[in-house]
């Protein structure tokens, strides 16, 4: 069964931003089909009650500002685009631009087990759940 979700992309500078829920927080995330993993700003995890002591360990991450070490956390619930993941691992660090319009990045690990189509003509994401 397929489900479609609209997104707004007014200019070529705009990213594909979708609304996701992590715990009890609604967060705007960039959908990045070129990202292997899902990232979230550490401030959102703090708000959800996670602390550095909850980390599963550090992992090196290559960013625009060079290589940093980010923490891995298992979050109780992450849902977006009709997909729900429980005890899902996210990679987290304090985003260097806290005033950006998004607070996370949805990567391929979140989309695993689905077929998805990004329609840039009609600005629509269609998710086909695997049976």
């Amino acid at each position, binding site marked *: 069964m397929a489900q479609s979700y609209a997104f707004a992309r007014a200019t070529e500078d705009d990213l594909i931003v979708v609304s996701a*829920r992590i715990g009890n927080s609604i967060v705007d995330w960039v959908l990045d089909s*070129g990202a*292997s993993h899902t*990232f979230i700003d550490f401030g959102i995890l703090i*708000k959800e*009650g996670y602390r550095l002591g909850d980390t599963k360990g550090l992992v*090196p*991450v290559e960013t625009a500002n060079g290589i940093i070490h980010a923490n891995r956390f298992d979050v109780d619930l992450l849902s977006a685009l009709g997909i729900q993941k429980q005890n899902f691992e996210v990679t987290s660090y304090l985003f260097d631009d806290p005033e950006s319009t998004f607070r996370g990045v949805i990567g391929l690990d979140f989309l695993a087990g689905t077929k998805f189509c990004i329609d840039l003509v009609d600005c629509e994401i269609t998710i086909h759940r695997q049976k």
Partner: protein
Amino acid sequence: MEELTIDQVKALYPDEWVLMQIENKAENAPVDRGIVLLHGKDYLELCYKGSEIAKKYLTTILFTGTTNSNRKWLKATRLPEQPKTT
């Protein structure tokens, strides 16, 4: 507490971080209104305080200032984990 639109929140608390309680939001629908629980200039302080007072509420964090529209997303890539030898 009164429910406000995003425009009202931006007018009341310019250039601040705002933690808002949301009700009845459809999946992937944009947040357009909510109840202001906290506001301030310090993002991390708001996150820590929010974790204490808003555990049971569906919330979002909003920045009411201007963002740089020309800023582009540059990738963040997890690299292979290498065991430390020392």
